[in-house]
C-alpha cells in the first residue's frame, strides 16, 4: 500500500484555518457600511425672570404676620419692586421656566423643609405664560412646610416657557426668618 504523506495535509489545514480566520474578518468588513447618528445633550430647565431670559438665583417671600398668606414673592432679577401679581386679569408669575433641552420635559417641583418651622403650607400654579388670569394658587407643593416632591405632570416642549406662581401660609411662629430651597426638575415624559 502507498504511504500517505501527511505533511501536505497538515499544512493544508493550518493554512485553511488561518485563511478562515483572516478572510472571515475581511468579508465581514467588506459588507459593513458606516452609519452615524448624534444625540444632543440633555439640559436642565432654566429658571428665568418675569420678562428677561436672565437666570434667577433667589425667590423671596416678604415679611408678614404669623398665620397669614403671602402671595407676593419676588425674584432677585425683577426685585421687590416687581413681585408676583395674582389677578383675574394681568396676573404675573414669580418666575418663568424655560426648556432649553432638545426634547420635551415633564416638570417636577421639589422643596426642602422650611427652617424654624415658619411655614405651615406652600402651594404652586404652573401655567402657560399666555394665561394671565391666575387669582388663586392652590396646587399643593407642601402640605406642612416639610420637604416634598411633586410630579406636576405638566410637560414643556423645546424652547417653550411656563409661568410659575407660588404662595405660602406662615405658621404661628413670630419674629423668625426661615429658609427653604425650591428645585425645578425635568424628566423625559
Amino acid at each position, binding site marked *: 500500500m502507498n504511504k500517505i504523506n501527511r505533511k501536505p*495535509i497538515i499544512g493544508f489545514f493550518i493554512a485553511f484555518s488561518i485563511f*478562515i480566520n483572516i478572510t472571515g474578518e475581511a468579508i465581514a468588513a467588506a459588507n459593513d457600511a458606516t452609519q452615524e447618528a448624534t444625540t444632543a445633550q440633555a*439640559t436642565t430647565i432654566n429658571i428665568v425672570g418675569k420678562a428677561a431670559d436672565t437666570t434667577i*438665583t433667589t*425667590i423671596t417671600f416678604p415679611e408678614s404676620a404669623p398665620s397669614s398668606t403671602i402671595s407676593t414673592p419676588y*425674584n*432677585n432679577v425683577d426685585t421687590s419692586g416687581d413681585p408676583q401679581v395674582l389677578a383675574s386679569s394681568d396676573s404675573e408669575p414669580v418666575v418663568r421656566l424655560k426648556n432649553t433641552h432638545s426634547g420635551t420635559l415633564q416638570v417636577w417641583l421639589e422643596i426642602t423643609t422650611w427652617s424654624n418651622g415658619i411655614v405651615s403650607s406652600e402651594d404652586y400654579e404652573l401655567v402657560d405664560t399666555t394665561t394671565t388670569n391666575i387669582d388663586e394658587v392652590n396646587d399643593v407643593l407642601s402640605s406642612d412646610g416639610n420637604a416634598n416632591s411633586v410630579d406636576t405632570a405638566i410637560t414643556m416642549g423645546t424652547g417653550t416657557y411656563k409661568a410659575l406662581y407660588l404662595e405660602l401660609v406662615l405658621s404661628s411662629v413670630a419674629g423668625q426668618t426661615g429658609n427653604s430651597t425650591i428645585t425645578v*426638575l425635568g424628566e423625559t*415624559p
Partner: protein
Amino acid sequence: MIKNYTKRNKRNVLFILLFGLLFITNSIVLATAVDRMAFCDLEGYPGKTIIFKITLEGTDPEEKSGFWYTHYKKVEGDSDRMDITSWVTIEPKDYTIKEGETKVFTVKINIPKDAESGLWGAISKGADKEGHSGERRTYVVFKDALGDGNVYSGLLIPISVNVLPNQDSWAPIINFIKKNIVTIILVLVIIILLIPFLRKKKTKRRRRK
C-alpha cells in the same frame, strides 16, 4: 481710499455682529447638560456591581454648585422591588461646574446577593422610552444652583435593573466554545492528524538508534 473705508466699515459691522451673537448665546443657554437621560434595563447577577460613568457639562459662565442623590417615586401598591435607591451610590456626590467644564461621575449599583431574578426599579422593561414615565420608580437626580441661590434646577434620570438568575459556573466556558467552534474543530483535526505523524517520527528515531 473709499474702498478701504468700506472694507473697514464692513469689518466693524461684522465684529459688532459677532460680539453681539456672543452675548445672545450666553443669555440663552445657561443650563447644565448631561450625557444620559436614563439607565434602564441594566443587567447583572446577584452579588455583582454594575458600574457606569455619567458626565455633566457646564454652560453657565458663573460657577454652579450642585449634588447628586437618589429618589424613589412612591406609588401606592408598589412591590418592594421598586425602591432600589439603597443599591445606588454616586461618586463624587457634590460638584461645582462652570461653562466649558465637564465632570465625570461614577454610578455604582450593588445588587444584593439575595436579590431575586427579574426587573427592579421600574414596573416594566423599556421604562426609559418617552411616554413611559408612569412605569419608572427609582431615579438618580442631579441639581445645581448659582452661587448662594435657593433656586435649583436639575434632571431626574430613571434607573432599573434586570437581575439575572444565578450564573452557571460552566456558562462562560460554553459561551467561549460556541463563539469559537470553527477554530476549535480545526485545531482538534490538526492535533488528531499530528499525533500519528509524531508517533511515526519517534518510531523512526528509535529504529535508527
